[in-house]
């Protein structure tokens, strides 16, 4: 029954996320409200990790297959993608490399700086 209780806790937080998504005016998905609520609950000690651990491991492991129906939905969106398929590919390539490069360089520089600061 332990896992059932864990699922219940996660489902209740999902429901609260859904309610926030309905009443707040921001374009934030219910799942993200739920994630923030769960993180807050863990940080404040309202929920402890062992109370949700097994169920969250199962859910995260199963997550990749949950995207299959949406990915297959590409067949209905093909008409919308076709006219912009080249720009979309270019944008995807360029921005991914840019983001990875900038994040890496900035993080590396700040680490070097703080390590130097600590030595002095």
């Amino acid at each position, binding site marked *: 029954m332990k896992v059932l209780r864990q699922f219940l806790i*996660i489902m209740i937080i999902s429901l609260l996320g859904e309610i926030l998504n309905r009443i707040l005016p*921001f*374009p*934030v998905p219910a*799942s*993200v409200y*739920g*994630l*923030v*609520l*769960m*993180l807050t609950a*863990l*940080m404040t000690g309202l929920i402890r*990790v062992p109370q*949700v*651990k097994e169920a*969250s*491991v199962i*859910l*995260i492991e*199963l*997550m*990749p*297959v*949950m*995207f*299959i*129906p*949406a*990915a*297959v*939905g*590409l*067949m*209905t*969106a093909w008409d*919308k*993608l076709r006219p*912009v398929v080249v*720009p*979309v*590919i*270019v*944008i*995807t390539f360029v*921005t*991914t*490399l840019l*983001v*990875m*490069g900038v*994040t*890496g360089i*900035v*993080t*590396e520089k*700040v*680490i070097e700086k*703080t390590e130097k600061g600590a030595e002095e």
Partner: protein
Amino acid sequence: MQSFIEYSLFFGPVISLVVYEGGLLLKRKYKLAVLNPLLITAIVLIAFLALTNVEYESYNASAKYISYFLTPATVALAVPLYEQLKLLKENLAAVLCGLLAGVLTSLVSIFLLSKLFGLNHEQYVTLLPKSITTAIGMGVSEEMGGITAITVAVICVTGMIGDITSEWLYKILKIRHPIAKGLALGTASHAMGTAKAMEMGEVEGAMGSLAIVTAGLLTVVGASFFAQLM
């Protein structure tokens, strides 16, 4: 056939999972990033549905139940994030600067390139969440009026690009610190980048998983502003 598929509760989920298992097998056998199981599954299923003349709606009538637990699964991402908060606190300045720089670079570069290519609002917001984890990115795209199916495909391809190019890019740019490597992979290429980071090392992997959620959350905030620019 069409009507059976429409009324069946198990056709969609079973065929999806069978093809996905096949994708996993291929990935395990050849270890190539291009063999992303989700992308393979999508391509094979689209080809199958097109060849057998089955409408997407008929397939999705039962396949949609696989996605039912997506919101709870995203909520569950808070647990590993919480477990890595210590790592975040120990390297707070570097991690925060890296994350902010990465997320801003993503939003700004997508905005500028979309403008350059003359994309419309719908196409632009479809691309905005491309670097973050599918669970959050799909929701962001939907909330802002994007085309979720394209967002999911672009997110998959983004993950593959990070996986394939990271080692080469780190060599050229001389990015050597494990924290920087992991954070960059997670910020640019979400879970697929993090899987690569885990191969590089434990610290890289932990930083990658930290970046998945934090970059995702920062993008939710940033994208709601950037969406209004075009």
